[in-house]
Every structure is written in C-alpha cells, then in structure tokens.
C-alpha cells in the first residue's frame, strides 16, 4: 500500500502530512505505531536510534510514541478518567489539570467515547496524549469536525504537546500531523510538509507553500509535478 517511504523526523521537528482521501496517510501513521494487519515488507522503522520495525504497539508507546486517532473505538464500561489514572501512573493532579485545560472534567466519568460529540472525541484524544506525554506524537486530522471555539483549544493543547512553548533550540518533542484544511497550522508552526498520493510521497517542502498550491490547484498538480 505504501512504497518508497523515506521520512526522517528530527528531534523537536513538526512535520505535516497532506494528500487526498485514501492516499495512505493514516496507513502510514498506523504502520509507524505498529498496528496489526500492516506489514513492513521492506526497510525498517527506527525510533530514538532503535529498530522498532517488529516491536509490539505498547513497547513503541513506552519508548515515547503516541497517536491521536481519527475514529477511536468506544470502550464500554471503561471510564475515561480510569484509563487516564492508569496511563498517568496514578498522577491524579496531572489528570485533573489536563482535563480542566481541555474542558473534559465532566466527561471523566463516562465510558471512553461513548456518546461523545465530534469535538469531545478530539479533546479526549488530545487529553489522553497530554497525560501520556509522548516524545513523538502522531495526529490524524486533529481539527476535522471541530467547531471554531474548540479549534483554538485543541490547537493550543497540541502546540503544548509539541513543545511549541519551548525555545526552538531546546524543543524535544516531535510530531507528524495529518491535515486536510491546514487550520491546525495556525497553531503549530510546522517545519516540513509532505504530500502523499497513492501511497507514495509526491512532494516535500515548506508546509504553508504546499498548502497554498493545494488550495489553488488541488492535488492534481502534485500528481504531475516532477519536482521530487
């Protein structure tokens, strides 16, 4: 499904991944996270100098990887607050502060994603990542289906996740963000952009300039572009 993927994300860098629906963006994220049903047939995935190509998902998480799901499953009976207690190692204060920041306090006693609105699902995902504190965050369309008020809330939270409040020299956390609209770029100052079509990278460059081209000419320009 994916071919010739050559991607290097340095410490403190934020990369943006764009591309038409079905081009393989989510598949790339899921492959990096290690989900079942996706097999790396050639090459390898390296994280913090370690070959993780065949590591199980939770060991990748322990190494410092985290992922925001576009459509996370509902887990009946498992309260959001309970999961956060577990993933935070029992740090009730941190859970409380993060939940308050994302205005999720009232939902901590609800089963994860059960009856959550679109915006609540996104906030729940970002909240889980805030508590998990990954060094490398993968975000799958964090702004889709979110209203304007919530976009700034989620955008600022993600900026924190990616150390955007830390001087660029000291920034430690990295990210790979899928976006269609580019709204999230208003909060992130992404460093690099990539365009994927049919499972292949078609373009690498400045994320804002790439977005500008896509906005005016669509992805058809990328398909014929010989720049890469």
């Amino acid at each position, binding site marked *: 499904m994916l071919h010739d993927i050559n991607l290097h994300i340095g410490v403190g860098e934020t990369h943006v991944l764009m591309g038409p629906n079905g081009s393989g963006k989510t598949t790339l994220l899921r492959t990096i*996270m290690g*989900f*079942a049903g996706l097999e790396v047939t050639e090459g390898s995935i390296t994280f913090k100098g370690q070959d993780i190509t065949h590591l*199980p*998902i*939770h060991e*990748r*998480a*322990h190494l410092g*990887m*985290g*992922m925001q*799901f576009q459509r*996370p*499953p509902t*887990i*009946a*009976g*498992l309260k959001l607050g309970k*999961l956060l207690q*577990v*993933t935070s190692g029992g740090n009730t204060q941190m859970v409380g502060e993060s939940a308050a920041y994302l205005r999720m306090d009232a939902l901590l006693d609800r*089963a994860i994603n059960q009856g959550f609105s679109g915006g609540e699902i996104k906030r729940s995902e970002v909240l*889980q990542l805030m508590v*998990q504190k990954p060094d490398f965050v993968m975000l799958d369309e964090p702004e889709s289906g979110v209203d304007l008020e919530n976009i700034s809330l989620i955008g600022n939270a993600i900026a924190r996740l990616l150390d955007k409040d830390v001087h660029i020299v000291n920034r430690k956390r990295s990210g790979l963000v899928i976006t269609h609209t580019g709204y999230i770029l208003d909060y992130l100052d992404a460093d690099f952009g990539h365009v994927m079509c049919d499972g292949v990278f078609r373009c690498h460059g400045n994320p804002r300039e790439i977005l500008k081209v896509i906005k005016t000419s669509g992805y058809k320009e990328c398909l014929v572009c010989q720049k890469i």
Partner: protein
Amino acid sequence: MSEDIDRMADLSEQDQERLAQTGLEVDLKNRSGSFFQVDQDIKQAASLEKGIEVLAIADALEKYDWLQEYSWKLVPRDKDQYTRYVAGQPEPNGFVVIARKGSRTVYPLQACLFLARSNVQHVHNIVIAEEGAELHIISGCASASYAKTGSHLGVTEFYIGRNAHVTSTMIHNWGDEISVFPRSASVVEENGAFLSNYVCMQPVKRIQMSPVAYLKGKNSVGRFSSIVVSTSGSYMDLGSVAHLLAEGASAELLTRAITTGGYIVSRGMIEGQVRNTRGHIECKGLILRDGVIHAIPEIKGDVVDTELSHEAAVGKIARDEIEYLMSRGLSEDEATATIIRGFLDVKITGLPDVLQKQIDAAIDAAEHSGF
C-alpha cells in the same frame, strides 16, 4: 465440620475468604441483619434494624398463622423435581424476612447459605416487604473448600408491596462439583420495584434457574441483572421471566456473560399482557476461550400499546479496542483485562453503594484469577 460451626467466624480462614467473595461480612459491620445456615442447620437469624424481622422459616410459620398465605403461593410445590424435594421436607429450612410498613434499611441484610458436608442443602425463603418498605438483601451462597460434591436447592418467594423497594443481590461461589437449582418468584404491587442481581464468576458444575416476576401493580418495576463467567466444565442455564400485568409496568433483563470454556444458556422472556407496558432484554456475551454462549431472548406482546424489545450480541473482544489501549502503553494482556472489566461493569441503578462494591469486588476477584 458443620456441627462445630456456630458463627461465620468459626469457619476456616479459607472458607471465610470464600464467603467474603460472595459479599458477606463476618463482623456484620455494614449489615442490618443476618441469617446463617450451614447445610440444614440454622445458626443465626437476627435483625439489627427496627421494623425488620429475620426468622427461621419453621419459627416464622409457627409464630404467624397468616404466613401460610405466602408459603408456596408464588412457586408451585410441584413445579419440578427440585421444588417437590424442598416441599417434601418434614422440617423446612430457610429464612423469612418481613420488612414492616414504611421500614427502611440503610445497610443490607445478609443471608448466608453454606454447604459443608451435606449432599443436598434445601432452603425455602419468604421475603415480604410491606407498603413503602425499603429492603436490601445480599445472599451469599458458597460451599466449603472441602465440599467436593453436593446440590443446593433454594426456593424463594418475594412479595413486594405498594411503593416498596426491594433489591436482592445474590453472589455465588460454589465448587466445580456442586449443582445449584434456585427457584424463585416475585410479585410486585403498585409503584413497587424489585431489583434482582445475580453474580457468579467462580466454577460451578451446573446451575439452572429462571426466576419469574409478576408485575401486577400499576407502574411496578422489575429489573434483573446477571453477570456471569463460565469456566471450563461449568454449565449455566440462566434466565428471567417477567409478566407485565398492569398499566405502567416495566421490566428490564440485562445479562453480561463471559465464557472461558463453559456453557452458558442465557434466557429471557418478557410478556406484555396489558396496555401501556414496556420491556427490554439485553444480553451481551464474550467468548474468550472456546465455549458456548446461547442467548435466547423472547418477547411476547399480547395487546396494543405494549412496547417490547431485545438485543443480543455474542462475540470476541474487538482488536481495535485492544490496540487502542496498547497505543496508550498497556500491554496486550492488560488491555484485554481492562476491556473485560469494562464489559462486566454494569452499573445497576437503585443499588446501594455497599452492594455495588460487593459486585465490583467479585469482578476484581475473577479478574485476578485471570478469568
């Protein structure tokens, strides 16, 4: 052995632990009363609460002539071979609880039926909640760690009066060679509510029951919840039946069943017999290791304006749920246990906290033994 046991505290530490897993307290700290029967010997029948009587059934029948009107009226003596056996005993055993008009218990009353040496333990219980009474009963049934074989035959008749509210929570902890045949029935009067909860997460050879509720008062409510885990070699045939017999009556039958190799038949039957009644059956099953879950929900509407529905699902733990939790750092085993825990976590409305905690503790115990 049984004749040496006069109080729960006389049991071995191991057997006290087995009873604790059924939600019983040896020190009765959070209890409003207690009944304790070992095999056929009644060791204790006492109430700590005003307005509530706890009696051995033989004493109660002697004390109150009117009680005859309540004995074998909901469960027919000749219903099956088990009821015939219990009815045929020259010396009846079991308890009678009478919650007088308007009485309320803060703490539940506990009934402990302990099978030690007998081959057959038989009990006949009658529970009467008079008008406006609120009563919570927790029945813990267990067999001694040294009891390898045996049967428990229990008949219970519940009478829930007008505006009365009764919860009956039964937690079982039998052995893998013990057979259990509870036979119970209830009648609920106007605005009364009967909540029956059943939990069994430990091995049992065979259990078969199908309590019947007659919701004959206007706006009466019946709710049956079962949380069961069937291990290899266990056979469980569980069901509940509700008859909606008055306007506004409603019933809900809810089951969470897990098999790790055992056989579960989950039945449910609601019959809407008059107008303006509602009923719903929900059965969810998880097959963790090859075993059987056979869900048989039945609904029967006899008139217009009765609304009945059912949903049943049997399956496995979804892979995407496990991977979702793994991406948060939980190992596959931890993720699986967490999802199972959530699956069984049925919050039962109207149940006192102390009883919900007992149910949670039973789930914890099963979780720690790895289901």
